[in-house]
Structures are given as structure tokens and as C-alpha cells.
């Protein structure tokens, strides 16, 4: 089932060739982006139909892996918060100055329940503009950040 070819064309799109048919504009999608990022990846067409289901990323060739990861890197945007510098208020809406693995930025927390608890220590914060910020482990934050964060939990 995994006999397919994946290349990038001049328009920057991924092209899938399988059973003699080729489809341009292939989009890789992680089925469980949080629970299992490296498993269960689907290659979808622009029409929203699935073409190939990849159980594990290691099942496909290195070239295809690179292409998929490259494309995913452009599609997936979940900055990981390393430090909370300041918050404008402890009541929402509150804008936070944060340091993330993708640089410093500001996020707007519209309501406390936009902080979603993924596990005992991991949090997912959705900001007012729809960007999801991840705190992988609250224990790894410094004391100042934890103190600020604590006021919202």
C-alpha cells in the first residue's frame, strides 16, 4: 500500500504519484498532533480526501520523510512557551509577554478556559487570534512564570 512517490514541484506543492495517477497540492496532516506526532500521518488532497495513510513516519523512505516534515514545519505552528515575562492583568482578557522557542511575542488570553489542560503538567493556550501555545511541562518554567501562570489555573 505504501508504493507511492512524493515530490515537490516548481509551484512548491507536494505531488503524490500512486497507481499511475498524480495529485498536486498534497497536504500532510498529523492525526494526533499532540498525543502522537510521529505516528498516524495522513496525506490529504486539496479536495479534502485522504490519499495515503502512514502508520509510522519511519515506514516511508527518508526523502519522503524529509518532504513531509518540511511541509509540516510550514503548517504546524505551536510555539512552546519557555517563560512568561509579564501579564497585563490577572483578569481576562489579559495580554501576556512570553518567550517561546520561536522567539518572543505577545499573546492575548481572552478567557481562562482558553487554557486547556492536556495532562497533569502540560497546557495548551489558545490566544485570541487562534494561535495555540504549548507549555509542555509547567514544572520546567521558572518560579516567576509559574507564579503568574498559577493565577490563571
Amino acid at each position, binding site marked *: 500500500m505504501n508504493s507511492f512517490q512524493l515530490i515537490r514541484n*516548481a*509551484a*512548491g506543492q507536494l505531488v503524490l504519484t500512486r497507481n499511475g495517477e498524480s495529485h498536486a497540492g498534497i497536504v500532510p496532516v498529523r492525526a494526533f498532533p499532540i498525543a502522537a506526532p510521529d505516528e498516524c500521518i495522513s496525506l490529504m488532497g486539496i479536495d*479534502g480526501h485522504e490519499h495515503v495513510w502512514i502508520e509510522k513516519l519511519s515506514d516511508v523512505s527518508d526523502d519522503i520523510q524529509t518532504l513531509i516534515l518540511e511541509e509540516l*514545519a*510550514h*503548517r*504546524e*505552528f*505551536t*510555539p512552546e512557551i519557555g517563560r512568561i515575562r509579564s501579564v*497585563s*492583568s*490577572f*483578569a*481576562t*482578557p*489579559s*495580554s501576556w509577554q512570553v518567550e*517561546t522557542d*520561536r*522567539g*518572543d*511575542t505577545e499573546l*492575548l488570553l481572552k*478567557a*481562562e*478556559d*482558553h487554557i486547556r489542560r492536556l495532562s497533569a503538567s502540560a497546557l495548551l493556550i*489558545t490566544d485570541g*487570534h*487562534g*494561535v*495555540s501555545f504549548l507549555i509542555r511541562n509547567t514544572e520546567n518554567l521558572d518560579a516567576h512564570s509559574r507564579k503568574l501562570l*498559577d*493565577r490563571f*489555573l
Partner: protein
Amino acid sequence: MTLSIPDAWRIKAQSRLTDGETITGHLELNLDAQLNFTHNLLLITDCRLIDLGSDCDYPYRDTLTLQHRDHGGVGRIELFDGASRLTCWFYTLAHNAAATRFIKQFNQQQACARTGLPAAPDAPELCPDCLTPLDQGECPHCSITLNAPPRAWTLLRLWRFARPYQWQLLSGFLLMLASTAATLVPPYLTMPLMDKVLIPYQNGKPIDFVIVSWLLAGLLGSALLAWGLGWAKTYILALVSERIGADLRTITYEHLLRLSLEYFGGKRTGDLMSRIGSESDRICVFLSLHLLDFATDVLMIVMTAAILFSINPWLALVTLVPLPFIAWMIHNVRDRLRTGFEKIDRVWSEVSNVLADTIPGIRVVKAFAQERREAEHFHVANAHNLQVNDRINKIWSLFTPSVSLLTEIGLLVVWAFGIWQVSNNEITVGVLTAFLAYISRFYARLDSMSRIVSVTQKAAAGAKRIFDILDHVSSVPEPANPVHLGQIEGRIDLKGAGFRYGNRAVIKDLNLTIQPGEMIGLVGHSGSGKSTLVNLMCRFYDVSEGSISIDGVNIKSLPVSEYRRHIGLVLQDPFLFFGSIAENIAYGKPDATRAEIVAAAHAAHAHEFILRLPHGYDSLVGERGHGLSGGERQRISIARALLIDPRILILDEATASVDTETEKEIQKALDNLVHGRTTIAIAHRLSTLHKANRLVVLDKGEVVEIGSHDELMATQGAYYRLYQAQARNVDTDLNDVPAIQTDNKVSA
């Protein structure tokens, strides 16, 4: 022409321009190619596109095109030269509206460069979000202020609710002053009792019964006085605080009802219920009990201190030494306790959320035999509750004994210093007895005062959570300068309307004009944005981009309730409130006459079945209309819509949940309703839309086809395929995907 580009970029921009080149547009970007946060600026001039972040620029060519799309909160603009991609820029969706505008400007400039004609005269600057003309750089609709209420003084904000009762409060306070003074009389009388009666008696003098009886009468009198005054003050203040609590509840609930559907979509019922119910009650208890006690305590301390100083300043000074320590301790613990109690509140609503989630879904829980797992959920929430409580109790449990210890030490100091002074003949034994009597009260009060810290923090946390609701500005705000429309015609214009739910674009750049009296059928797969579009037209949500106007007036500038009065809504699963059928029909117009109600029921083909019920129009229907069939409930809701005589009618899958026979009955009722009104109908059975003037076929939030049934069949496009699919298999629903259920819940 100078366009207002951000100051930080001005110099750099100037350095890249050639002579005579003018900037006509710009776009701020905040992500680089690896999606790291950065700052970059794209410029559009009259001859090229400039990327200030790199050294690249792109002179206009016919083959250049810009495209944008977004996913997961990241937007990207791709520059194509023919079929090959030259480059790609990224931004977060905060800049999405600006990006759309940027692409329009690019296309405009490129067209100018090609044709050599000057750009079309500059339109007035439009708000990037809703395309209404800006008023001095600010959009009258979109300017939202980020409100940050002060947190330390949250409780003082309750004054707003106390103001109506200020006179009662004042009299309560005066009574409190008097009653506190009365309670301070008895220790004072122990002084003469000791020095003039008991000690002389020990030294051999007989007891003067006149003085004794006077003193004892004084003791009794002051006790009675304190009792009477204390009763009056407690009664008055409890009365007032109960009313403040009730006002708080009502006002919060009223405010809550005015918030948009978006707010309710994001909140859990259990949480909202606990905020309005138990937390307003906690504030009320705080005001009537704890705050009252605290105020009495403070008065007592001040008065006692005054009396002590008047008797003997030195001893008084020693007595008051532990006071600053205790104050310091209270202050120190306050912050920890407050955040802790806020946390307990949140955990508490977590617990009630588990209940609110499970109990309505009990059928599903039982059907899948998941009682144990739900119990486990509750257990986890409860364990979290315990954990948070344990943490705060650690601080709390240390606090009270420490205050007691300080109290004991204080007493010890007074004994020691007092005995020393007595031995030096500076004070009498009576004075020392009076002091000890005073300060044992005094410290007892301090002990109870220290308790105020925790209850204040609890109440402040509760108040904060209530003010969170009160401070929440509806995302469907009332206009500052409302426009009033008298009678409306019912023309609806959607201009570049877009809506995103979180980071998912549900409606994209939708343009549609609906003529007065026209019937529009919305057709499309489930999830194509039909229900969302209807929600936008009802202004349950506001569009995130573009605008919706009625008779040429942006609906954002109309008062919300006035606007909705023009809209009749019939939903798939009609909601009937607890009450009689007549009340349900008259829901949108409570002052309707009986004749009007009956006429509406007639037109909705509901009259006859209502008369067959045992109590006719006075029959009670339950919460969700138990006892009535789906078709009957639907006809009641049609009568409800008919009664308010709206110019605009929205039918959201009005016949979806009934069988074909009932559907015909409802269809007849609907035909009466639709007549002469602007109608927007969503239906998954395409046959029910045969009366529609035009059909609008939606797919993934975009209009793919518009036209009458015959025209669309002739073009053999998306509608043709849908129709064929249904014709082949009568049972095929367009919406056999369960997702539509959630769509409808939002609108119901």
C-alpha cells in the same frame, strides 16, 4: 501620497525606494520562513513589491500573482510567477485582514502598471476588519478596549450595588458604633468595683451597698443596651446585604443573557451556574456576617485603645505591642490565601462541571456502561480539589494558632508590666483588672479579625469571578451611536463577509445580495457554513471580516434587540419553554392579544391540534415540549415566528426532524410564513426548496453557485451533483454526517 507605514520601518523603507517611487500599501509580517517570531514589512509601490526583510524585490510582471491561505493560526502569502513559486511569507492571523487588503492593493497596482492608467481614486480608508470607513483612524465598530479591572479593590466595586442602600447602611453603622460603645462599659465599671469596694473591704472597710447596687445596675443596663442595639444593627445590615446580594445576582444574570452566543459556546454551564448562584451567596454572607463582625472589631479596638490610653498611657502602649506583629502576619499571609481561594473556586467549578456534563448525558453514560469511568472523572476532579485545599490549609492551619500564641504572649507582657507598675504604686489593682478585662476581649477580637483575612479573600475571589462576567464586553457589542430603522424592507447585503471559529475559517469572503421578499435556499454539505451564515445574519456572532447590512445599514450599527425583532427564526429542534402553549407562541411578543395568538396558530396550522389538547391553549408544555410530537412543536415555533411578523425569516432545517407526512403539514404552515418576507432557508431535502427564488450553493464557507433550480440543473455543477445524489437514493441526506448536530446546537 504617503501611506502611514510603521515608524520603525520608515527609514529603511525610504532607503529602498528609487526617486519618484511611491508607496501605496504595506503589510506587517511577524513570522519568518521557519515560523519563528520576527518582524518584517512588505511594501507595495507603483512599480514593484519590496520585501524589507530580505534584499528581494519583485517588479510587476503580468505573470506575477499573490495567493494567500491559512492553517492552524498561520497565514501564508505565496508569490507565484506563472506556475512556479517565487517565495512565501508567513504571518499569524492577527494580520489576516491586513493581508487580504494587501493582496487587493497588489492586484490593483499591478493592473495599473500593466495598463499604464492611474490607480482608481482612493476610496476612503476602510477598517481592515469590517470595511466600514474609518473615523479618525479608528473603526467605529471594531475598536475594542482591553479592559483590565484592578484586582486588589475588587470588593470595593461592590459599592455600585450598595449605593441604593446608603441610608440604611449609614443608620446600621451608627447603631454599630453605639452598640460597640455599650459593650465597652462593663470592664470600665470593674475599676471602681475593685478599687472602691473590694480592695477597701479586704483592708477592713465594710462594703458600701449603695455603690455596689449602682455599679451592678450599670453592668446590667449596659448589657441590655448592647443587646438591643446589637440586635437592631445586625437586623438592618443583614437585610441590606441580602438585598445587595440579590441585586448582584439579578444584574449578573441580566448581563449574562446579553452576552453573545460565542461566550456561551466557550463556557461550561456548571461554571456559570456556580458563579451566579453560590458565589453571589458567598459575597452576601461575607457582607452580612463577616464584614459586619470585622467592622465591629475595628471599632472595638479603636475604642478600647482610646479608653486604655486615657487610663494609663504606658500600660496601654505595652498592651498594644503585639498588634503590629499580628498586622504584619495578616498582611503576609493575605496574598497566598487569596490566590489559593481563587484556585479553590476554580477547582470547585471543575467539580460541578463534571456533574453538569454527565447528568444531562446520563443516557449515553448508561448505554455504554461507563458509570465507573464517569465516577473516576469525578474522583479526579475531587482529588484535585483536595490537593488544592490541602495546600492552602497548610498555610491556614499555621496561621490561627500563631495568632493565639501572640495573644497569650501579649497577655503575659501585660501581667508582668502591670504587676511591676502596681508594685511601684503607679496604678491600682482595679486599673490592672480593667486592663486585663479589656485586652482579653481585645485579643479575642484580634483572633476573630484574623479570620477576616480568609473570608475577605474568599469573597474577593468570588467577586472577581462575578465581575469577570460583568466586565465581559459582549462580542456582539451594542453600537455607541445606534441607528434606528423604523419599518424595514428586508434587503440584505453581505460584503466580503468572513468568519473564523478559533483558527478555522468557516466563512470566507462571501458576497451576496438578497432582495426584499426574496426567498433564498442555502444548500451544501454539512460543515459548509450554512448554519454559521445564518448565525451571522442573526448577529449571534459578528463577522470577523467584511460586513452585513440590512437596507444598506451595517447591522453592527443597529441596537441588537431592535434588529432581532425583525427576524423570525425557526430551528430544526424547536425549543419550548416551560409554560402554556399560548405563552410559548407569544414568546417574542408577550403583550399579544388572544386573537393574535389564535390567528398565528391558525396560520401555522397548529390551531386544530392545540384544541385537541385537554386544556387547549392553556396546556402546559414541559422543558423541551414533552408530550408534543416533533411536528407539533415545530408548528408552535412557526406560530411564534409568525406572531412577531418579521420582515426577515430564517428557516434552519425547519423540516429536518419530521417524517414526510408531517413535513407536508409543516410546509403548508411555512408557505404562509414565507409569503412576502425575505426568507433564508436551509434544508437538506432539496425538494423542500422548490419555492426558493435563488439557491446559493456553499462549499467550505464559499459560494460556489447561485441561481434558480433550473439554471443550476442546466449548468450541471455542484448543485446538479447534490440533486442527482438525492434523486438516486431518496433516503440519502446531505447531512448524514453527524457533524451537523453540533452545528444546530449552536443555533438552537
